[in-house]
């Protein structure tokens, strides 16, 4: 990919090209009456070259969302509604052969544990070769050369191409995975908790590298994590998920400055700061809901400090009506009954 001066100057949001669009995506686990709705009618957009973060805790549906984009949902998970569009084409209508070409070339994925993704009995270089030859017509030596380039790109000595995964440290293995994800120059790289299992210093090193690569190679990143503070530093835009829905979506700095949804506020209140006075924080009482029988109305209402029977009209809405995402400021959407519609 040739980097042009224009690419570097233009902020990603202004550039053309919606890469991925989720329209009313609904993903269920199981069938019939014991169904669990992991993702419920989600509308979501990823544009070319931008870093979008999805924040949420366990069970909020973020990994399912990622798997839906990659079309790697495993039974009993299945898409039961909505569309998954990549550059306008609905991935749900594609045949398995087309999907195989699409995966890794257009969209690739970095998983949480590299050891799950790397074959322990094959050398690192051979795994690159395998992967590349599955997608492209390339000679073994050509593929190995590319592997060495990629390792260099992520900051690993190219000679480690001959190493086995267990000979590398955790951080290096994760970097190998990232290199493999970039091998075919995809337009979107999905990263699902890529650094959660790593130490904080290694985490920052890797993310710095990814950010540099992202600026250079101009791919979009979908970054999924529970660490909201990390996203605020590294993402352009953040979507907060709770119980299968997106409850707030805004540019990163804006979200940090002005979180509107009580869940986002609570989540921010769960990360003690490193500077400033040490004050008692609150976190969020209760725990994430059981998705096989979620609360009626607003799914967050049992834990929301603003849900109070004292205001009967509002309370009635909160407990019966699902709030929809409404725009409250430029590019800032919130799904909450407490929030008034602005414009549109």
């Amino acid at each position, binding site marked *: 990919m040739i980097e042009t001066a224009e690419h570097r100057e233009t902020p990603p949001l202004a550039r053309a090209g919606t890469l991925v669009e989720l329209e009313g995506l609904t993903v269920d686990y199981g069938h019939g009456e014991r169904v669990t709705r992991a993702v419920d009618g989600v509308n979501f957009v990823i544009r070319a070259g931008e870093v979008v973060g999805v924040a949420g*805790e*366990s069970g909020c549906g973020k990994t399912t969302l990622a798997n839906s984009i990659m079309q790697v949902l495993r039974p009993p998970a299945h898409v039961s509604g909505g569309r998954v569009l990549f550059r306008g084409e609905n991935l749900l209508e594609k045949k398995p052969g087309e999907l195989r070409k699409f995966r890794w070339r257009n969209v690739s994925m970095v998983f949480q544990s590299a050891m799950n993704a790397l074959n322990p009995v094959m050398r690192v270089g051979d795994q690159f070769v395998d992967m590349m030859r599955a997608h492209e017509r390339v000679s073994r030596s050509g593929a190995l050369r590319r592997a060495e380039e990629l390792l260099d790109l992520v900051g690993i000595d190219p000679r480690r191409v001959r190493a086995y995964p267990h000979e590398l440290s955790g951080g290096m293995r994760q970097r190998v995975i990232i290199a493999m994800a970039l091998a075919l120059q995809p337009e979107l790289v999905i990263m699902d908790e890529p650094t959660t299992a790593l130490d*904080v210093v290694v*985490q920052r090193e890797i993310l710095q590298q990814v950010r540099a690569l992202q600026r250079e190679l101009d791919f979009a990143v979908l970054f999924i994590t*529970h660490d909201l503070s990390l996203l605020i530093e590294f993402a352009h835009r953040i979507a907060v998920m709770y119980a299968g829905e997106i409850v707030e979506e805004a540019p990163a700095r804006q979200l940090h400055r002005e979180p509107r949804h009580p869940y986002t506020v609570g989540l921010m209140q*769960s990360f*003690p700061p490193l*500077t400033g006075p*040490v004050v008692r924080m609150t*976190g969020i009482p209760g725990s994430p809901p059981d998705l096989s029988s979620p609360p009626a109305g607003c799914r967050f209402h049992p834990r929301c400090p603003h849900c109070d029977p004292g205001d009967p009209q509002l309370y009635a809405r909160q407990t019966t009506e699902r709030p929809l995402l409404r725009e409250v400021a430029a590019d800032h959407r919130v799904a909450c009954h407490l929030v008034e519609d602005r414009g549109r």
Partner: protein
Amino acid sequence: MSTQLEVRGLSKRFRVGNALFNRSEVHAVDDVTFTLRPGTVTALVGESGSGKSTVAKLLVRLYAPTAGHVLFDGKDVARDRRRRDIVRYRSQVQMIFQDPFGSLNPVKTVRHHLARPLLIHGVVARARVDARVEQLLETVGLTPGARYAGKYPHELSGGQRQRVAIARALAVDPAVVVADEPISMLDVSIRIGILNLMLQLKEEHDLAFLYVTHDLASARYVADDVLVMYAGQIVEHGPAAEVLSEPLHPYTRLLLASVPDPSLGERPDIEVRKGLASAAVDPPDACRFVGRCPLAIDICSRVTPELVEARPAQAARCHVTAPSPHVREERHV
């Protein structure tokens, strides 16, 4: 007589490789010294492999030390072999484990987990055990206690399980509680709740807490004192406020520069240098951080630095920022 736990020169070495031919040892914990005082939280901060979990296990006698002393109330308990002494120690020093599911027996009720310590140490008469179990559960926020006592671990959420684990540790009314990464496996929104509970219990029972973690932010939130571990050694210690705002040791500075903090705005990239925080095998006499240190000077590769108090109550193991007197002399010559 203050009920404090003092650790002096604690070391733990593990043999690696083939025991017969390979006499290499990994220095998991090397010459660690600190004191836990009642009513305080001491954070032991380090990355994976730094030895912090080993220290925790040494304190609760899951490992036996290779060298060093563990002084409880002035008496060296590290080498006690009699069951009576061991049981008495266990009634004073308890542990909260990292994995809220793994630390509870899946086939036993909550009541069992709390009743056993009560019965082993004779904390209450047998007839009053059930009542005390329920009381303990309510102390940790699981109210009504009677409802939770009969439940099995898989019927509880992660946060609830961890509260049970805390209740279990508290059942014997210990003086010292070692918490080994108690929140790292919990959902983000409930971590603060558990930390607040720990702080509350510390106040109410005048406990000495050792909070082992890799997360500096949570360490700052709860701790009075901080110990920073690297490759088995303590490289810096002092009051939390000082160490985390004006760190002496380059590693502490690196940690602070790496932790995400949105309130700091755009931050400079950290310098990437190869090196691991994990314990070394047969380490030579040198600073273990030397390969990654931006301040390294000649002596750093030749002599292991000592912990030197460079500021009141704040000490670091560094030839540059906290040089010991004769090193300082040597450098001036």
